[in-house]
């Protein structure tokens, strides 16, 4: 027997089925925490957001209509909670966890790459909130512009405008990209 779809699970959650709810939380917890951490810049706040998002799913389940994919709705809840969240802790991306001395021959190259990745993470963290959400949903979660628009409750051209502005800001902040002629 195949895995139950998100929508089947939601139908059961709507009936108060705690086991179905647990399956949904197992399916989406890591993604929720990861998205919130990228958005807010720290893991502790991200855990609070993920937990709050799931509790909202549980409470709203009997009223939920499967007019859009559950994942889209759930992303919207997580993103909106992040947008409303007052950052309580400093931004500390995981990538700052430390550069351990590495004796491998390509260690320097990897160190440089790690430095570039951290600079990008910081630049994304400094974007205005909706631009940051659009960048993370599109380039990290890999959502299409149309699905990002659904999550952000915006038009596709609105999302494109957010991405254009975000990319301009990132280009200005990061300077010429590596590998660019």
């Amino acid at each position, binding site marked *: 027997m195949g895995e139950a779809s998100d929508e089947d699970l939601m139908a059961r959650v709507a009936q108060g089925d705690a086991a179905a709810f647990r399956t949904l939380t197992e399916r989406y917890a*890591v993604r929720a925490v990861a998205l919130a951490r990228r958005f807010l810049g720290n893991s502790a706040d991200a855990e609070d957001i993920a937990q709050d998002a799931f*509790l909202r799913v549980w*409470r709203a389940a009997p009223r*939920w209509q499967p007019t859009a994919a559950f994942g889209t*709705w759930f992303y919207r809840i997580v993103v909106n909670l992040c947008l409303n969240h007052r950052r309580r802790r400093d931004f500390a991306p*995981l990538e700052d966890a430390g550069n351990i001395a590495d004796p491998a021959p390509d260690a320097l190259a990897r160190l440089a790459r790690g430095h570039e990745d951290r600079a990008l993470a910081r630049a994304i963290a400094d974007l205005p909130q909706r631009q940051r959400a659009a960048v993370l949903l599109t380039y990290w979660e890999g959502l299409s512009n149309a699905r990002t628009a659904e999550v952000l409750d915006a038009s596709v051209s609105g999302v494109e405008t957010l991405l254009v502005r975000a990319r301009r800001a990132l280009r200005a902040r990061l300077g010429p990209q590596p590998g660019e*002629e």
Partner: protein
Amino acid sequence: MTHDEFEHLLVAHGADVSLWPEPAQRRARELMARDPSAAGLLANDAALDARFARALSGGPVAQDLAAGRRVVAHLAALPLPKQDARAPVRWLPSWLLALDLRPAWPSIAALAGMAALGFLAGLNVVDPGPLDAAMGDGARPQVIADLSTIVFEPGPPEESAL
């Protein structure tokens, strides 16, 4: 094609111009031929995409996996709250369910702005006139036609006018 349109197409279709719709492709090539900064933007965008792909790919890291497990365990241990048992309203889009999740501050700012504007309008637009006029046949309040006085203070008179 303008630079702005070019940037939007880059976001919509990616940095490989050969994958763009035919008319846009042709106009983009024309733009790049006459404007070298557009060609530079294309190269920069491709490099930024590569940087995104490297830095933002790979999915969750160990810390996210551990945090996810903690969230699942915590939710399993919590007494789940009462569900919202009101019947679903089928003609309403389901996004309304998330209404309380929308960012609150823009709505609050808009409401406060409207309240302030209403207050100013009340103070400035409608002049109830002198009390004796209101008691007589001129009971209708006077309306000040020039709304600009609400926003713009008249400047001081020109020196030559004094």
